[in-house]
C-alpha cells in the first residue's frame, strides 16, 4: 500500500473525533473539577517498597485465582458488576422502586453505606441502580441525602426538571411539584445542579444553599446559615430567599448575577478583582472576623491571584484561627508556605501542614518544597528530608534532587 492508502486508513479512524455535545463536555469538565479541587476521587497511592514486577505478578495470580473461582462457583459472568441494593425502613413501597413516606418518614439504606431519609408525606422512586451509584427521582417533598464517598461514584438525584450530580456528600433536596420550587442545602462536599436557569450546571460547595422557582424564573445561591429551611414537605411555599434572585429572562442583568454568585464561584471563574471589591465593600475587617469559611478561602485565593499577598496572608491566617480543624485551615498552611518562600518562614509552614495533614493533597508538594528550600539553606538537614522524601515518593518530582543530595 502506498502513502495514499495510509491516508485513507487514517481518514477512517478520524471518524472517531474528540467532539461531544456541549452538555456532555460540561458535565465531564465539572466531574474533573470536583476531583481536582479535592472533593472527589482520592489520588491513587503506589505500594511503597514493593517491586512493581512482584505487584504485577501478584495481581495476575490473584486474577487467575479469582477467574477459576468464578468459573467453578458461578459458571457465568467472570466479572459481574454488583449493583447496589437497598432496603426500606418505614413508609410504603410500590412497583418500580416507588417509596412513599408516611407520618414517621422512611429511610432507604443502600449496600454502599449511602442513605436517603424521606420526610413525612414525601415520595421518591429509585429509577436505576448501578454498581457505581443510583438514579433517584424525588417526586415530591424532602430527601436528606448522604452519599458515601468512593472513587468514581456517580449518583444522580432528579427533582422535576432539575438533576443533582453527586460523588460523595451530604445534602437535603426538596421539591414542590405544585409550586415547582427546588431547594438544595449542601452540608458536606459539593454537587452540581442542572436544570432551568442553570442549564450548564452550577456547582454548590459546602454550606451553600440553592433555591429555584421555575415559573418565576428565579434562582438564588446563598450561604447555608442564611438560607430558608425547606418547607415543601407540607406543600407550603418556601419563603423568599434573602439574596437577590437571578433572572434568566434578563441576561443583560449581569450585575445581579454577580451579586448572587458565591465568592468561591467567582474565584473559579477568574473574577478575583470582583471578589476583592465585594470584600472591601463589606469591610475587610468584617469579612476576616465574621465571614464564612468559604468566603475567607475565596478571599485568600482572590488576593493571592491578584498580587495582594498581605491581604491573602490575612485571609488564610483568619481561616486558621477561626476554623483551625478544617481541611481549609491545613491547606492554608501550605498556601502560607508558598507565599513565604524565600523568607525562611516557608519551611515552618510546610512542617505545620505536614504535621496536620500528612496524607493531605499537598503533602508531596510540601515535603518537596521543603526539601528544595533546605537544599539551598541547610544541606545537612536537607539530606534527612531527602531520605524521607524518597521513602514516601520514590518517583516524585523532587526524587532526582533528593538522590543528588544523598550522593554528596
Amino acid at each position, binding site marked *: *500500500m*502506498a502513502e*495514499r*492508502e*495510509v*491516508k*485513507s*486508513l487514517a481518514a*477512517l*479512524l*478520524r*471518524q*472517531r*473525533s*474528540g*467532539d461531544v455535545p456541549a452538555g456532555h*463536555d460540561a458535565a*465531564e*469538565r465539572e466531574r*474533573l*473539577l470536583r*476531583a*481536582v479541587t*479535592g472533593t472527589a*476521587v482520592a*489520588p491513587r497511592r503506589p505500594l511503597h517498597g514493593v517491586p512493581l514486577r512482584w505487584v504485577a505478578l501478584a495481581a495476575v495470580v490473584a*486474577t487467575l485465582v479469582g477467574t477459576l473461582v468464578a468459573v467453578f462457583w458461578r459458571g457465568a459472568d*467472570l466479572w459481574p458488576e454488583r449493583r447496589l441494593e437497598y432496603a426500606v425502613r418505614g413508609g410504603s413501597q410500590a412497583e418500580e422502586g416507588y417509596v412513599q413516606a408516611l407520618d414517621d418518614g422512611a429511610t432507604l439504606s443502600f449496600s454502599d453505606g449511602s442513605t436517603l431519609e424521606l420526610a413525612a408525606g414525601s415520595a421518591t422512586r429509585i429509577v436505576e441502580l448501578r454498581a457505581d451509584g443510583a438514579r433517584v427521582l424525588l417526586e415530591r417533598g424532602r430527601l436528606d441525602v448522604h452519599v458515601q464517598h468512593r472513587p468514581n461514584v456517580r449518583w444522580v438525584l432528579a427533582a422535576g426538571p432539575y438533576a443533582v450530580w453527586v460523588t460523595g456528600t451530604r445534602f437535603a433536596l426538596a421539591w414542590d411539584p405544585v409550586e415547582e420550587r427546588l431547594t438544595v442545602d449542601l452540608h458536606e462536599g459539593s454537587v452540581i445542579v442542572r436544570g432551568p436557569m442553570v442549564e450548564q450546571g452550577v456547582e454548590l460547595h459546602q454550606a451553600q444553599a440553592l433555591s429555584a422557582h421555575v415559573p418565576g424564573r428565579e434562582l438564588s445561591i446563598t450561604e447555608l446559615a442564611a438560607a430558608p429551611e425547606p418547607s415543601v414537605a407540607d406543600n407550603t411555599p418556601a419563603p423568599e430567599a434573602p439574596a437577590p434572585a437571578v433572572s434568566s429572562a434578563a441576561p443583560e442583568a449581569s450585575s445581579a448575577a454577580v451579586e448572587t454568585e458565591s465568592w468561591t464561584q467567582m*474565584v*473559579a471563574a*477568574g473574577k478575583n478583582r470582583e471578589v476583592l471589591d465585594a470584600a472591601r465593600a463589606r469591610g475587610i475587617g468584617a469579612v476576616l472576623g465574621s465571614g464564612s469559611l468559604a468566603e475567607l478561602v475565596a478571599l485568600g485565593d482572590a488576593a*493571592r*491571584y*491578584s498580587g495582594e*499577598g498581605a491581604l*491573602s496572608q490575612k485571609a488564610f491566617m483568619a481561616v*486558621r*484561627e477561626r476554623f*483551625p*480543624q*478544617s*481541611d481549609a*485551615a*491545613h491547606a492554608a*498552611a501550605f498556601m*502560607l508556605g*508558598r*507565599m*513565604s*518562600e*524565600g*523568607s*525562611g518562614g516557608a519551611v*515552618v*509552614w510546610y512542617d*505545620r501542614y505536614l*504535621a496536620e*495533614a500528612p496524607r493531605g493533597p499537598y503533602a508531596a*508538594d510540601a515535603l518537596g518544597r521543603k526539601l528544595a528550600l533546605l537544599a539551598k539553606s541547610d544541606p545537612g538537614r536537607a539530606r534527612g528530608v531527602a531520605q524521607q522524601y524518597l521513602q514516601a515518593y520514590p518517583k516524585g*518530582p523532587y526524587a532526582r534532587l533528593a538522590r543528588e543530595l544523598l550522593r554528596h
Partner: protein
Amino acid sequence: MLGGMATGRAPAPRQGAQVHVLPTRFASDAALIEAAIARHPAAAREIWERFATLVRGLLRRTLGRDDVDDHVQDTFLRLFRLLGRLREPDKLRSFVVGVTIRVAREELRRRRLRGWLTLRPPPDCEAVATPASPEAADALRRLEALLDRVDADARIIFVLRFVEDVPTAEIAEALGCSLATAKRRVKRAHERIVKAAALDPVLRDFVGTEALDDG
C-alpha cells in the same frame, strides 16, 4: 470534610517575605501550570478547555470506542498529579499527549490480558455515531479489529503520526525517547499496520477505492 488536629496560633510570616503571585488570566503556559499545581479551579478549567478534545480524540482512536469518559478523567487526574515534573512549560501539549499515551497503553494492555484470561476475542468495536457509509463503518470496524491485533505501541504511534498528524519530534518528546528512536518506531508501526491492512480483503478494497477517488 473536617479532620486533622487542632493547632496553636501559627507564627506570623516575616515582613518583607517574598510573595509568589499567580496571574489571574494565565498569560502563559508557565502561569497556567503553576496555578494548576496549586489546584486553582480556573486553571483546571482552562486546561480542560484546551486539551479535552485532543485527549478524547486520541483515546477514542487508540482504544477504538466512543465511550472513553473514564479514561479521559484518568488522563487529566494523572496530568494534574504529574504537572510538577514538567520542566519546560512550552512542552505542555507534548506532556498532555504523553500522559494520554500512557493511559491508552495501559488500557490496551489491560484489555489484552482480560481477553487472554477470558479466552474470548475482544468485543466488536462500537459503530461510530456518523459513519460516512455502511462500507466505511465496516471498514472502520475491520481496521480497529486489525489494530487490536498489533501491539499497543504500534497502534498508538500510528494514531499519533498518521491520524493526529503529530510531528515525529513531538512524538519523541511525548514518548521520552530520541528522535531517531521515534522515527524507527513510526516506521515499524507503519509497516506492521499497512502490511496487515493489505492482507484484509475488505479493507484493501475499501482503501483502494477511496485512494483512487482521491486521486
